[in-house]
C-alpha cells in the first residue's frame, strides 16, 4: 500500500499571473505573529461557517457510508489497498478526530461516533488486521491503520499481541520511508507505547531521534516558502498531523514551526484557492487548526475558509479540485470522499480551537514518545468513547502496555 498520507496525485494546476485577485482581495488588515499590524478584523473564520461546513461534510459522508465498505476478499494481494483500506483508515482517523473535538451532544459528535463504529465493524472488529499481518507480516500499514481504532479504545487483542512483537523488530523500524511517513510510524509506535529500536524505556533517546527526523523534512528543515508545491504541501500537512497526532496535541509542534506556518500559510492558501485545489486547501486549513498557541488563532485564514466553504455543495461534498459535483455519479465518491473528510476534520478542529481558551504554548516539540494528551482514564472506559483532551505535558513512564495507545492512521490524500 502506498504511503498512507501520500496525498492525491492531483492535477497540479499552476496559478497564473492573471489579473484575478480573487481570494483575499480588498482592504484588510493581517494581524498575526510576525505581522506588524493589529487589525480590527479577526483572522479566523466565523464559527457559523465552520459549523455549516463540518456538519454538511459529515452528513454527506454518513450518506455514503456504504461506499466505504470493504470488498469481500480485501486481504487478497491483488486488491488495491488505496481504494479500499486507505479510505476506511482515513474515515477512522478523521472521525476519531472529529469525535474528539466536537462538543458532546452535537450532531457532529453523533455522526462521528456512528461512522467510527461503522469503520470498526467493517474491520470485523479488528479481525481484518490479523488477517492482513498473516499475509503481510512485515508490512507497517496494518499497525498504522489500527492506531486510530486503538486510540478510540477499539482493540483487538490477538492483533496487538503480534503488533507489539513486530514493531520491536529492527526490520519494522528500519522500514524505508520518506521522512514524513517515518514521523507517522513514530506516532504509531508512540500510540502503542513501544520504544524504538527495542531500547528500554521512553524518553530522551526517542525524543532526540524524533526531533532529528522531524528536522529532515520539508517543513522541519524550513524549506523556502516560495518553493511550495503540491507534493511538498502534502508532505508538510502530514508532518503536522503526525507530530500533533491529528490535532490532538498542537503543543507538540515546535514553536518555530508554528511561527513559520502562521507566516507562510496565507500565500500557500491563496495559491491553492486560486487553483481550486480544495483537498490541499482543506488540509492547509486543518494544519492552521493544529498550530500551537498563539499561532492557531492568529494566522489569517478567514478568506481561505470562505472560499473553501464556497466549494462545498448543498449535499456537503467537496471535490478534490474544481467545482463540487452538481449531479452524483459513480465517480463522485472517489472524487470527493477525501476532500469531504478533510472538510469535516478542518471544520471541527478549527471550531474547537475557537472555543478552547489558550492552552499550553508550543513546546520544544521534542515529540516525547511517552505520549501527549495522556488525559482521560488510564484504565480507559469500557465504552469506547475517547475522552477529549488537549495536549498536556506528556507524562513519562507510559510503558509498553500503556492502556491508552494512540496510533496515527494513514489518513492523507486520496488514492
Amino acid at each position, binding site marked *: 500500500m502506498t504511503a498512507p498520507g501520500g496525498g492525491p496525485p492531483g492535477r497540479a494546476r*499552476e496559478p497564473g*499571473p492573471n489579473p484575478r*485577485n480573487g481570494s483575499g482581495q*480588498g*482592504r484588510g488588515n493581517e494581524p498575526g505573529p510576525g*505581522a506588524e499590524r493589529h487589525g480590527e478584523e479577526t483572522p479566523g473564520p466565523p464559527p457559523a461557517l465552520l459549523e455549516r461546513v463540518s456538519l454538511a461534510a459529515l452528513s454527506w459522508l454518513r450518506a455514503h457510508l456504504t461506499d466505504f465498505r470493504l470488498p469481500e476478499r480485501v486481504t487478497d494481494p491483488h486488491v488495491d489497498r488505496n481504494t479500499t483500506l486507505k479510505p476506511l483508515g482515513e474515515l477512522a482517523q478523521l472521525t476519531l478526530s472529529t469525535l474528539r473535538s466536537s462538543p458532546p451532544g452535537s450532531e457532529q459528535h453523533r455522526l462521528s461516533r456512528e461512522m467510527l463504529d461503522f469503520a470498526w465493524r467493517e474491520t470485523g472488529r479488528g479481525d481484518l488486521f490479523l488477517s492482513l499481518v498473516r499475509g503481510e507480516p512485515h508490512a507497517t500499514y496494518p499497525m498504522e491503520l489500527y492506531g486510530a481504532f486503538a486510540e478510540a479504545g477499539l482493540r483487538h487483542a490477538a492483533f496487538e499481541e503480534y503488533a507489539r512483537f513486530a514493531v520491536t523488530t529492527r526490520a519494522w523500524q528500519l522500514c524505508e520511508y520518506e521522512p514524513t511517513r517515518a514521523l507517522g510510524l513514530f506516532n504509531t509506535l508512540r500510540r502503542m507505547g513501544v520504544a524504538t529500536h527495542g531500547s528500554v524505556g521512553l524518553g530522551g533517546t526517542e525524543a532526540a531521534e524524533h526531533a532529528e527526523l522531524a528536522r529532515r523534512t520539508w517543513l522541519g528543515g524550513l524549506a523556502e516558502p*516560495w518553493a511550495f508545491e503540491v507534493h511538498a504541501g502534502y508532505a508538510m500537512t502530514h508532518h503536522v498531523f503526525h507530530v500533533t497526532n491529528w490535532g490532538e496535541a498542537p503543543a507538540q509542534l515546535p514553536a518555530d514551526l508554528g511561527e513559520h506556518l502562521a507566516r*507562510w500559510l*496565507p500565500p500557500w492558501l491563496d495559491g491553492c484557492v486560486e487553483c481550486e485545489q480544495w483537498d490541499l486547501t482543506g488540509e492547509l486549513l486543518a494544519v492552521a487548526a493544529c498550530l500551537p498557541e498563539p499561532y492557531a488563532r492568529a494566522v489569517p485564514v478567514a478568506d481561505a475558509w470562505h472560499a473553501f466553504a464556497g466549494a462545498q455543495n448543498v449535499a456537503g461534498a467537496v471535490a478534490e479540485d474544481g467545482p463540487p459535483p452538481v449531479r452524483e455519479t459513480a465517480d463522485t465518491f472517489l472524487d470527493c470522499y477525501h476532500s469531504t473528510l478533510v472538510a469535516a476534520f478542518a471544520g471541527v478542529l478549527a471550531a474547537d480551537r475557537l472555543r478552547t481558551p489558550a492552552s499550553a504554548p508550543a513546546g520544544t516539540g521534542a515529540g516525547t514518545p511517552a505520549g501527549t494528551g495522556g488525559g482521560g482514564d488510564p484504565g480507559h472506559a469500557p465504552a469506547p468513547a475517547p475522552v477529549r483532551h488537549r495536549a498536556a505535558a506528556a507524562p513519562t513512564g507510559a510503558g509498553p502496555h500503556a492502556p491508552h495507545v494512540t496510533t496515527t492512521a494513514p489518513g492523507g490524500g486520496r488514492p
Partner: protein
Amino acid sequence: MEAQRSDATSRLPDVVQEFASAVVPALRGGDGRFDVVGTVLTPADDPVAVAAVRVLGADVLAPRTLAGRTPTEADLALFEHAVRAFPPKAGGSALSAWSHRGMRAALAAARADGTARAGDGDVPDTAWVAELSWQRMTHQLAQLAALAVPGLAPPLAEAVAARPVDLARGFVRAVRRRDWLQAAGAGRWLAMTPGTPESLGLATGLDFVHHMGGADARVALHVQAAAVLRSRGDGAATPYAGSVRA
C-alpha cells in the same frame, strides 16, 4: 497617423526590453560611466524611446542612484524629455504620482553633485500601503519597484517597512503564480526592508526568479538591483550617499 501610433505601441515592449538590457550590466559595477543611449539601437529622438524611458522610470538612472556611476548628457537629456513628455495627470492614481515623483527625484540626484535635496511638490499618498490586502499591496508595490532605491522615496520605504511579512507573503504568492516581474519587484523592495523574514530565503528566491524569468530584462534589472541592495548589508534602508529625497 493611426498606423504610426499602433506601430509605436507594438514596438514599445521590445524597446523597453532594449533599454532595460542596457541598464542591467551598468548595475553590476565596473568603470565610472554608463551610457544607455549609446548602447541601444533605438535613437533617442524616437518617440518610442521616450515612452520606454517613461515605462522604466527612475530605473533608467539606477546605475547612478544605486551604483554610483555617472550618466551621460545624452541619457540625462532623454530622461528629462520623458519626464516632460508624460507629466502626472491631475487626479491620477497614487501609483502614477509616485512613479513620476521617483523619476524627478532620480533626475535631481543624477544632476546633483551628491548633495541631498528635498523633493518638491506634495508627497503622494502612502496610506494604501497600510490599508490594502497583502496581495494587492504587493501587486502595487512591485509596479513601483523602481523606487526601491534607498533615499529615493523615504515616505514610501517607511510605509513598506511597516509590513515586511506581508510583502514577503506577496513575494511567495507571485512566485507561485509565476509572475516573475511581480516577484522580482517585490523581492527588490524586500532587499531594502528591515524585518524581512530570514525564513523567506530572499537571496535564493531572487536567484530562482532570475533563473525562471530573467529572459525579461525588467526582471533581470530588479534582481540585479536587489543584489546591489543586499550587498549594502542586511536590507537596511541605508540612504545612498548623494541621494535625493523624493
